[in-house]
């Protein structure tokens, strides 16, 4: 009975290492962004390490379009790193992580206002709805891939996404713009 894990054969393979390095360069920030959305930055860094360790160990299994695979792995790693799914969801529910990550654009008043409106609207979605739109809008996933990362069927995800978009549209259309004379006072 094997009692210790051996290094994968690929570890001495320069081609495999090149592939892993390229994978890391192309996607590590995206995996970090996903993990940081569901945890804190320190935990997110550990999650990235674990995800790419799995990728290194299973480099032959990493698909040509690797991001969905990496994010599913990240979701699974988060279960372990943080001990509980519940704690992670609470972090996500708090919207703290999303707000921290959302791009700040200093150029225009209108953009700043739209950012605040968008974050306000996102904060009123359920965590599942919010995750659905973020998987599409931030992670750039196709619907089928996003469903895999969300851990549900494509059909269920499409329903969730459709509902989330409708709510988001409604919330944004009814949000009251802040009068300009109140901006940056």
């Amino acid at each position, binding site marked *: 009975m094997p009692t*210790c894990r051996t290094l994968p054969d690929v570890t001495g393979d320069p081609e495999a290492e090149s592939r892993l390095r390229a994978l890391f360069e192309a996607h590590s920030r995206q995996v970090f962004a996903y993990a940081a959305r569901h945890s804190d930055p320190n935990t997110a860094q550990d999650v990235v390490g674990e995800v790419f360790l799995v990728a290194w160990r299973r480099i032959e299994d990493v698909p040509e379009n690797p991001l969905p695979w990496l994010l599913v792995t990240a979701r699974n790693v988060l279960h372990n790193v943080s001990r509980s799914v519940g704690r992670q969801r609470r972090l996500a529910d708090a919207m703290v992580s999303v707000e921290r990550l959302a791009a700040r654009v200093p150029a225009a008043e209108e953009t700043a*206002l739209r950012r605040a409106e968008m974050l306000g609207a996102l904060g009123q979605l359920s965590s599942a709805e919010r995750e659905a739109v973020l998987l599409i809008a931030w992670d*750039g996933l196709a619907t089928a891939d996003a469903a895999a990362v969300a851990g549900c069927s494509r059909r269920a995800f499409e329903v969730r996404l459709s509902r989330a978009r409708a709510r988001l549209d409604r919330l944004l259309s009814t949000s009251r713009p802040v009068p300009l004379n109140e901006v940056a006072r």
Partner: protein
Amino acid sequence: MNSIDQLSQLRPSDEALDALWFPAERTAVLDEVLGGPVVVRPRAFAPRHPRRRTVAFGLSAAAVTAVAIAVPVAVLGGHSHDSTPVADPTSMPAVTTGPPMTSASATTAALTTSVSPAPVDLMKPGQFLHVVEVEKEDGQWSDYQQCTSPALDGTCKTDLVTKTPPVTHYRATHESWTAADGTTWRVDHVTGSDPETNGSTNYYKFPPSFGAYPYAPKKFADLPTDPVALEKVLRDYNSKHYAGQDADFLNYEMYDAVHGMLNTRVAPPKLRLAAVQVLEGATGITRGPATTDSLGRPALKFVATNTKTGSTDSMLLDPKTLEIEQESSTMPVSIVLTYVYKSVDVVDTVPADVLQKAVAQN
């Protein structure tokens, strides 16, 4: 432009992500990955490297004898590679050293000078480390703070409107079995105020993992067990890894480093002792007076504040084995997270239902 397009414009930029995850940290993570997975070997296996020969300063003759007995039986994390027969824990003397580094923060309590074997130190090949941990979460998460008057850069300096979230009450029991190669089976039983998780039971199988940097088990054999040398190794790592961070954060990272080592539960006795002595000598880390944990067990208490998140973290250690009994984090959003290690022992098997129901996580 539809709402998804608008949301896409708020996608985190590379610059924003670099501010949260420094390029140097990213490089370090890649180096860790390419360094290979964690291989924690049972005692019976041949060494990859000769065991480090480090003797703590002030070591007495009696202590040398104790070390000679106790250290080789450290199995999982210690990379102890000889074939010394496993001893009965009750017959194993504690590892002792002379006084550790001195610090103003440590003058209120007697400093730690010895460590006794823990169950994991006696684990044999084919056995499993069995841990039962209770997680508690109480308080209120602050919800999204809506800004009624955003500044031009999107920040909000005034008029934050905070929705009041409901009080949360969460309990989870995590029972895990970890093999010598690091593979872990875990069962989570969850109760509490969250209707989505209340009453749920989940079975997982996790592959061997890194542990936290830079104190992954695979590195334990190379870490000095002299507290001064260990402190230098950790501080050098933190200074490089968190370049540009202020001194308070680096002090917290010293706490985090030691916590990371102890939390693996496979740090060998001499390393545990040196790590605790590092805490006792560290700036910004408070060693409290002798106390008890929530189960009434005697404990040493260490407290530090994470200046990045604002949370106050504490860990309670068994004064004899220097293993973590309980840890907690009080967050600025009025949440208290507590983890109590209810029991830690070594067993010969993983329950059949756990093996059967566990869902592989990679």
